[in-house]
Each structure stands twice: as structure tokens, then as C-alpha cells.
């Protein structure tokens, strides 16, 4: 036992002796975790306040259907116990495949199933939210051939900020819990995971979140994909509130990142780019699992091996560095004064990001407000900005693309 650890234990012992029976219950007892389908090859983590011991690899089943049921078997036999689906994945066929496989041989009680309801049309219209949630939950349960899902999530592909605390949605969740149709609730969020996670943690209604982030910001949907750095505060808050966190889209541009690693050990080990990126994200404080979309056995076998991969500190640092140089603008500001012609390089990329994100008018207005010599058309193509950029962003091409969209 290390000295620091010893001192911590000793202090706890003294406190317990002094406080005796007055010790708060939450301190007095370890939470009763729930274990299912644990097998030697996999590792597990307590999924926040749900107390589920979930496999660190979760199955994302967007592509799952009856024709790919053998994949579920391989995952199950590999110790995966966390299976994620959604009402509209493959028009409901993903849930059907779950129902067909897990309803047999008592498998249902050996896994944690999360599904999602898509009520964005109702939320957007501001009506029928409560009724539709109950209706869709019932349909999902029928397809899944179960009486109760372990986690029911609000399906989000765009920002859900305005809807995190939607009264009718939360009322429907409470009623579904009372009816025994779901045990816990959560949200999945692609677009603004940091903001949504913060709101979820603060409002106190939620137990779990599925959030999209990775080592780098994705090129498509530029501003809406979040990096690990941008998630740090929200993850910290989520940890304080004991939310279960599962990460999706964790291997964004994995091949590009790993192509530029320099640490020899990373390549020698023979791990795939996806394995390395998943493993990196699993090491982020507050992350309990990563959800991986898998369509064939080779991908399953690759991902089953992820939790046991050991990454040395230098390798982690190298991955971080490689991600930072992967051609995606991190808005670091290095290019701010680089252009001899005075082109507002970073601003233009930011406006283009707004545009891609859907804020077209605002983006165009911002671009129009730039002086002519600051716009992309003033670029003489000298490439000085690209020489300075630590992210190796192809800035000259990006400026042209931005101008085409914004002008």
C-alpha cells in the first residue's frame, strides 16, 4: 500500500470511529452493483447511478437486423452485456433482432438493453410529446420482446438543449418508470454533447447519457462534433452527479490520427486505429463505456480486445499529438497573424463552421461584414498559414470552400 493510500484509509477509519452510526448511509455501504454476463476476456465499469456493471464495449446496433443476428451471439459470448438500439434503427428491425436473440435461452436477464425514442417531431411541434413517448416505448418493448428496458433514452441527432427539461417528456419517463417499463432514463446527443450533458447533470432527472466525442472534431458537421478537451468540464460534473456515460463516435478519423503517430510502440503492437482510439477514449475520466457499431465478426473480435489494451503515458501523449495534427482546425489561433495579405483565416473557417452547422444566414452576414481584403478572395496562395498551422489544415483549399459557401 502506498503511503498516500495508507493515509487516506487511516483518515477514513478515524472518521468512521468518531462518527459511528451517524455516518451517512451513502458512505457506509458500497453501492450494490448489478452484474450480468461477465466473462474473463472483457472488463466492466460501474455505470454511474444505475449501478449496472456494464461491459466497457457496448454494441451500437444501427446496422443490426435479423440477417446479422450471429453478431449478437459473438458479442454475448465475448462478455458484452451492454446493447444499445433505437426505435428507428433500420425501421425497428434492430429492436426486432434484439428481441429474437435475447428472448431465447434466458439471455435477456443477462444483458442491459438501452433503447431510444425519437420524439423530435413532437417536441418541435410542441404537442403530443407525452402520448407519443408512451406509444413508442410500448412499440419498442413489443419488438424487443421484453417487459422493461434498462435505459430509455431521448434520441438526439441535433441539439436537444431546449428539450432536456421538457416537462411532458420527463413526465412520460416518470410514468414509464412507475409502470415498470424502464428502469432508468437518459439522452443521446450528437450535436452539443458538452452543453446537453451539463444540463442533464444539473437538472437531476437523468441517470445516463450517450454522448458523441472523440480525439478530434469531425470534418462533417464541423462544429457539432466535440473533442475530448471540450467535454472535460461536463464530464467532471456528470461524474459528480454520478451519471453513467457511454461515448459514441469515439473513433472519428481514427485512421488519419494513427497514420501520423510517431511513438514506435503504438505501431509495433499491431492494434488497429479504431482499437487505439476506442482505448484512448475509454481512458478519459468519467467515461464508462464506448459504443461501437459493428457489422461483421472481424470488427467484433477487434473491439472485444480493446479494453485490455495497455497504453503507456507516452503513447497516450503521442495519440493526442497526432490527433492535433490531423488536418482539422482546432481554432488555436496560430494562423491569426500569419497571412501577409491580411486574410482573416481563422474567422473564415469559423463562419464556414457556422454555415455547415446550419446557421447559414448568420454565417453569410459575418462573412459579408469582413473587409474585402480580409475575405478568402484576397488569398494569394502563398501557403504561409499552412506552414504555421499545427493541425496541418489545408487552409488554402478550405478558404476556397468557405468562400463558395458564404459569398
Amino acid at each position: 500500500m502506498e503511503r498516500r493510500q495508507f493515509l487516506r484509509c487511516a483518515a477514513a477509519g478515524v472518521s468512521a470511529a468518531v462518527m459511528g452510526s451517524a455516518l451517512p448511509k451513502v458512505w457506509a455501504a458500497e453501492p450494490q452493483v448489478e452484474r450480468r454476463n461477465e466473462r474473463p476476456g472483457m472488463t466492466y465499469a460501474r455505470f454511474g447511478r444505475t449501478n449496472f456493471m456494464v461491459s466497457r464495449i457496448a454494441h451500437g446496433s444501427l446496422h443490426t437486423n435479423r440477417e446479422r443476428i450471429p453478431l449478437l451471439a459473438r458479442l454475448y459470448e465475448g462478455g458484452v452485456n451492454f446493447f444499445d438500439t433505437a426505435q428507428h434503427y433500420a425501421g425497428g428491425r434492430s429492436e426486432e433482432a434484439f428481441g429474437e436473440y435475447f428472448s431465447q435461452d434466458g439471455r435477456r436477464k443477462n444483458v442491459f438493453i438501452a433503447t431510444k425514442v425519437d420524439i423530435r417531431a413532437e417536441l418541435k411541434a410542441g404537442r403530443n410529446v407525452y402520448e407519443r413517448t408512451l406509444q413508442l416505448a410500448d412499440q419498442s418493448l413489443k419488438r424487443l420482446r421484453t417487459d422493461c428496458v434498462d435505459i430509455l433514452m431521448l434520441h438526439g441527432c441535433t441539439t436537444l438543449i431546449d428539450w432536456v427539461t421538457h416537462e411532458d417528456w420527463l413526465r412520460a419517463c416518470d410514468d414509464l418508470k412507475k409502470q415498470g417499463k424502464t428502469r432508468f432514463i437518459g439522452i443521446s446527443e450528437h450535436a452539443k454533447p458538452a452543453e446537453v450533458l451539463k444540463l442533464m447533470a444539473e437538472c437531476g432527472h437523468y441517470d445516463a447519457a450517450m454522448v458523441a466525442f472523440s480525439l478530434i472534431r469531425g470534418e462533417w458537421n464541423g462544429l457539432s462534433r466535440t473533442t475530448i478537451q471540450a467535454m472535460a468540464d461536463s464530464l467532471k460534473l456528470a461524474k459528480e452527479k454520478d451519471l453513467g456515460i457511454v461515448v459514441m463516435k469515439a473513433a472519428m478519423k481514427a485512421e488519419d490520427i494513427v497514420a501520423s503517430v510517431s511513438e514506435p510502440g503504438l505501431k509495433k503492437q499491431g492494434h488497429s486505429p479504431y482499437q487505439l482510439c476506442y482505448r484512448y477514449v475509454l481512458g478519459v475520466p468519467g467515461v464508462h463505456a464506448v459504443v461501437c457499431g459493428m457489422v461483421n465478426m472481424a470488427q467484433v473480435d477487434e473491439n472485444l480486445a480493446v479494453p485490455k489494451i495497455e497504453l503507456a503515458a507516452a503513447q497516450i501523449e503521442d495519440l493526442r499529438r497526432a490527433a492535433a495534427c490531423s488536418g482539422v482546425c482546432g481554432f488555436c489561433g496560430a494562423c491569426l497573424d500569419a497571412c501577409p495579405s491580411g486574410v482573416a483565416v481563422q474567422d473564415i473557417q469559423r463562419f464556414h463552421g457556422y454555415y455547415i452547422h446550419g446557421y447559414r444566414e448568420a454565417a453569410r452576414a459575418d462573412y459579408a461584414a469582413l473587409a474585402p481584403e480580409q475575405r478568402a478572395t484576397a488569398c494569394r496562395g502563398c501557403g504561409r498559414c499552412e506552414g504555421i498551422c499545427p493541425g496541418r489544415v489545408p487552409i488554402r483549399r478550405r478558404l476556397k470552400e468557405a468562400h463558395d459557401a458564404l459569398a
Partner: protein
Amino acid sequence: MRWLSPDRTPNVVRGGRSCPPRGMAGCLRGGQVCPPRKSAAILRVCGVLAALILATAGGCSSPGGDNILLTERGLWHRTGPVATYTANNLHEYIDGAAPFVISFGFESLQTAGYRRGAEPETTVDIYDMGSSDNAFALFRSNSNVEAGPLEVGTEGAGADARIEFWQGAYYVAVSNPSADEKDEVLALARDLAQALPVVGAWPAYLDLLPTAGRVVHSERFLPSDYLGHGFLKRAVSARYKVGAREMTLFACRLETPKEAAVAMGRLKAFLDKQGRAQALARGEGGYVAADSTLGRVAVFQRGQFVAGLYPYPEEPAADDLLADLDRRLGGR
């Protein structure tokens, strides 16, 4: 399938496909990928020019005006511009579902909102899948499983939330925002189907499947990873009723007989781990093996095809099905 949040408006011009030759089915996407706008004035000029071209010769339309997603469709008025997405940015519209749609050969999507009087807005999504083979495949793998059949397009289905159909190279989804609007939304869907070109009818790969005993609407086409195996590609399958039993018949088309033989071997190696395979007197190198999920699987090769049946009950009726499939594959 409209997943935009209230604060997002779709872009008019997205992606970068060039306009197909006039008269081709793909002309649907028309001028949506015209060069980016310089100004609203240029846009207006383009619109007028395109309208003139359309009026005189027929062909590609302009940004904001399209030969399918017209500004008026019967009693329906388009509420905004037509947005176009390609494989490069489909994520921006349907996000995580994009790879699934793309895996079926997706080429482009055009989408627009329509409103009838003061009723809630409906959304029309027209997916250009490049061929009727792909459009059928996506429809059968993506349409709502709760939906009942509807007479719209080559094949249509509707649930309370939306109507979907496929026709020619197009897979179309029309949202149904209100129960009161159901009939009108169906009328809109039929109107769209009438405007869409019909190229070919049912996919030719369906002819590989025997017809006797086939379960209605059970036919599927999976472009890759059939049964979760990367080496089993272009799989056409259907369920069959044989007495009280239901079983699945499939045929995967590989590039060459040699590739099919390799796939046969790899599948056998996988199944052998669960029990020793036995020879099956069918096709080239046929065998029967046990799988923990599928039950007994009968597999054989015929030329560039790997085909089979599961669960295989070893009954004359099942053998007849395999023989029928073998005969059809042999004719290819």
C-alpha cells in the same frame, strides 16, 4: 426522417454532384448542385433561366425549383428551398443513420417541407439510390416495420408517422404530421410517385428466389456482411414456410467462382468451430453445419454464388427448396 432541430435550416446547395445528362432518371437532382450563389439576384436570374429551359426543352431545374419537389404540388405549397445532400454530408441531415443508408448505394437526397393551408408541415425526402435494386433494398431494410402496405409507388407502406415507398431508383419518405392529414399526405405521396421516373420494375435478383412457400414481404437484399461475415456479399434472402416451420433461403453473389470458393471455405471454418460439418449433395462442395444461433445451416456453391438455408430441417421440402434455388443459380 427529418431530424433537423428548430434552429437549423437546411442548406439549399450541398455536396458536389454534377447534373446528369438531360432525360436521365437522375435528373431529379437537377440544378440543385449548380454553382454556389453569388447573390440573391443571381439566384433569381438562374431561376428564371431554368424555368425557361424547363418550359422549352425539359431537363435540369434550378436551385429552388425542381421537377419533382415543385413549389406547388396539388394543394400543397413548398415551405422553403429544396435541400440536397450527398454521401459527403448526409450526416448533417440524418446523422448516425447515414452510414446505413450509404451502405445501400445512396447517391443523393433531396428534401423539402410542404404545407397545406394552416395544417402542420410535412417533409418529403427523396433518396436517389442509383438503381431500383438499391431503392428496393433500402426500402425493405429501412421502412417502418409497423407500417402496413399502401398502394403508392412500386411498393409502399405507411404507419402513423410517415409514408414510405420506392419506385425506380428512388426511395421516398413523406412524414405525416397529423392524423387528420393522413389521406392528404397519401395523396401527396401518390402525386410524387406519378412524377418520378419508373426505371425497370422489381430487382432481377429476386428471380433467384423460389416462389413457392415464400413469405410475403420477407425478401431482403443486404449489400455486405450477411450473417455478420465480411466475405458474404450481395445477399438476397427470403423466408419460407415449409409445413409449420419457417426457414431462410439465401444466395450471396461473389465476384468470381474462385472468390465464392474462398467464402465457402471461410464460412465452413467458422461453423466447424461449433461442430463438424457434414457433406451435402448439392452444388459444389455443399455441407451442413450447426450454428448456435441459426441452427443447422445447409450451404453450397454454384458458380459465383454461395447459397444456403437455415435452419435446415433435413426434410424433403427443404431439399426441394435448395434444389429449386440451385437450378435458378445454375441458369445465371
